[in-house]
């Protein structure tokens, strides 16, 4: 599904050049659950942003489902994002002005999904996540665990091929963190590919394999 070849990302200011990604090459197959681990500043999140088409690499190639996507324009990237990608963030990133139902519905609106279909898909997910009774609530009325469940629901509602999760349990206590990881595992078992950045080895244990990074490069040994 993902084929990355000599991927580079360099941040330049007037004075300094920082290499965030250094000649990365790897593949991720469809249906895999991959963790990315490494110390702060090693480039994990940058990698996730590039994989999620939120950021463009400075060099190298990135094939997504066989298509070279690193050179696409913003509109085409937005199009792939809304059709095939789902995102889960450490800080949930729900839109405060929209309620639970509307937050989950939003990607479907951008995809122009018919109203009846939207309602059904959101309802099914709300039920699955045990959030049906909360659908009118706004994010600030929910617990952290509930917010992350909404965020996951929002990420999967458009049936993405790939879910990119950036420290999804980072802001949650152990109990709620575990719930979220179970949820991701279920999704993966149902066929969704997942790439997850994490600090937590327990979370990484849910994945099939782990990519370890240091100073922008992939290293094979554990830290």
């Amino acid at each position, binding site marked *: 599904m993902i084929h990355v070849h000599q991927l580079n990302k360099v941040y330049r200011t007037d004075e300094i050049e920082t290499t965030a990604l250094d000649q990365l090459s790897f593949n991720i197959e469809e249906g895999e659950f991959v963790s990315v681990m490494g110390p702060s500043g090693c480039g994990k999140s940058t990698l996730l942003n590039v994989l999620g088409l939120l950021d463009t690499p400075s060099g190298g190639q990135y094939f997504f489902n066989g298509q070279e996507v690193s050179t696409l324009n*913003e509109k085409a990237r*937005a199009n792939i*994002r*809304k059709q095939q990608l789902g*995102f889960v*963030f450490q800080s949930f990133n729900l839109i405060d002005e929209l309620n639970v139902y509307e937050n989950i519905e939003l990607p479907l609106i951008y995809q122009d999904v018919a109203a009846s279909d939207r309602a059904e898909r959101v309802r099914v997910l709300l039920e699955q996540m045990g959030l049906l009774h909360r659908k009118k609530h706004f994010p600030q009325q929910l617990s952290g665990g509930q917010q992350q469940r909404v965020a996951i629901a929002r990420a999967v509602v458009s049936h993405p091929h790939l879910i990119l999760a950036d420290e999804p349990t980072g802001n949650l206590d152990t109990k709620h963190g575990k719930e979220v990881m179970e949820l991701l595992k279920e999704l993966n078992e149902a066929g969704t590919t997942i790439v997850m950045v994490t600090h937590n080895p327990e979370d990484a244990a849910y994945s099939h394999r782990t990519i370890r990074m240091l100073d922008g490069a992939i290293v094979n040994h554990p830290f």
Partner: protein
Amino acid sequence: MKLFFNYLLFAWRNLRRQRLYSLINLAGLASGLACALFIFLYISHERSYDNFHRQAGQMYRLTNQLSLDGQGENSSSCVLPAAPAILNDYPHLVKSAVRFFNYQDAEHTLRYEDKMFNETSLFFTDSNVFEQFDFPLLKGESSTVLSRPGTIVLTQSTARKYFGDADPVGKRVKFDGVIDLEVSGVMADLPENAHFHINGLIPFFYQGGFYRNMLNNWVWNPCWTYIVLQPGVTSTQFLAEMPAFVQKYYPEHLKPQIVHELQALRDIHLTSSLDYEIEPNGDGALLYILGAIGLFILIIAGINFTNLATSRAMYRAREVGLRKVLGADRSMLIQQFLLESALTGLLSSLFALILAWLTLPYFNELASKDFTWQILTAPQNLGWLAGIGLLIGLVAGLYPAFYLSSFEPALVLKGKVSNRGGHSWIRKSLVVAQFTVSVVLIALTLLVGNQLKYLLDSSLGFDREQVLVVPVRGPMAASYIPFFEQVKQEDFVVSTTVMNDVFGKSHNTHEFNYEGMNPGEWKYFPCLYVDENFLATFKLQLLAGRNFDKTYVRDDSLAVLINEVMMKELGFSKPEDALGKRLYTPFGHERIVGVLKKFNYVSLTKPIGPMVFDLPAPNQKILWTRNLVLRLKAGELRPMLMQLEKLWQAHANEYPFQWYMLDDKLDQQYRAQEVLSKLTNSFAVLAIFIAVLGLFALASFTAASRTREMGIRKVLGASAWQISWLVLRDFMSLAGLAVLIALPLGWYAAEKWLAGFAFRISVTPWPFVWSALLLLLIVLLTSWYHLYKLSKTNPVTALRHD
């Protein structure tokens, strides 16, 4: 469609969540729009004058220039026989003509049984008046209502004064105590947007002898004449015939001096300020000034909007990032932000309407208008308001939409968006533009106020205080003469005089010939008939010669006084040189016996012109006595008036007692300037209010966005004052730059406006300095609150920010 509703829903929740921001935004925009709505109403009303006549497009007023070497008059009225002669000679060019005539007396008395009033706006006219003009006739047939001699058509409100609810048709009223008139019809009161108003119309031919004599008089020009050109005929075609017309009819000595012009009916109100206007007209320049003020205020409000939206970028950045992550592309986000600002614009329009409704009585008082809720909510006005609201929303929302939608999701989701970098110069330029407009507006307001004060307080060269004027007319002579004699005995009357015209308006011109001119050539100079107490009553100064002398052995009515300007016109540089010189008139000659120091007898908007003061011949005294002028002792007016009224009742009870104080009348000349001054005052306050709202919000966002920086500075030892100064310095330098730009702009505008006054204040830097100081003070006060809060914040809290 769903996306559209999602945007709407979001915009609405956003408005509600960010209450302070929304309030400031809506309040600023709504008050700006309300003010623009008022200005729009005012301008459209001023531009709608005389539009209600179906033939308005082809209707013109025939005017009459009379000049030689720049002296003479530019009259809004013509000779009586002009209209019939034109109709007779040019039927292929002119469809119809109607004249209005009132003996050039503003008032006439009407009486029905015991009800008696002095009526303004009674006109003798042609019987086809209701066919040419669309004055709505409530009773009577337009073609016949004035066809019988001795009839009168009254307006509804005039008729009600005399007849209450009874049917006035067929009732008889007495005109000036001598002419019996039968009410033959009733017309509706004319709307305010007519350049002259009517209380009653009387057909011409009733005046019998007088009218017949005047029909051949091609010199006296008291008749306002309106013609309708045939379809397709242009004013140029008509005017091309006028030189021949003048040659055919006018007396020999006038032929080289008379020029007829046409004024389009609809243009009269805003462009005409000729001699002998029926009513004072509006001021077209005022509309431009108000239009500019309206635009200024909308710019200030619009800039607020743009600045607030942009400075809130960091609050919206995460949302932008998220929406992009969820699949929105930039155009979708631009649409969303534009929709939000359009919605805010429309909502502001709604609030503006409410605001306008609440403040309507106040505006009406300021602008001397009578706008109603119905006018406010007329479809075209609502449409305009919504349109402007929408337009401002969109224009002001354009930059924020493009700016906000440009955020990179990867950065903003990590909180890596700064509110201070990037395009901050655009925001700063907008703040400078806003400050500049505010300074110009405040400075101009001060200047307009100063000029008005100057006009009202300037010494005119005569003593205008405590002068009471009683207008009289020939037919009243038997009554007012004994009254006037008795008035002179009253100890509160310091002195009295009579005049055929008062100060403060254009005066009748008379023809003169003097040394150096060809025989038979005439120049027209304003001339005032007075008596020998004129100088004493107005405390005028003689530069040379003597006053009129009552005890003069021969008839002193052949003596004239002239003013200093006339002296120069005659070619003399020293007053003494003019003494004894002759002025020839078509009826004989006069001799100059005195030269008066110049004084302002018309208006400070016009330069002082030449003037001749004459005593009427003994047999013409009654004809030329139109005003009894009384200089009263200083003191309470009421008891004096009561005594005067008592004396009037004793001698002239067939006429209502009527009077006015000269200084009030003179002040009324500056109504337009007064309205302008009041309006600019209010609008400037409003502009400041809107700018303050914007500044307040801007300061709050600036403070918020620099909380962390301030925390660090504090940890490193900066004092509260040093921290405040950092932010303040930015605002102050922007304000300073604005003052530099505003100075030449405002100066230019002020010079341009003041050029319309012959007597004017000179522009000094002071109004600009004051407005700049005011602005800086406002900047200081609005920022202070936030800066104070900021400087008191615990650095630990501040550092936890972000």
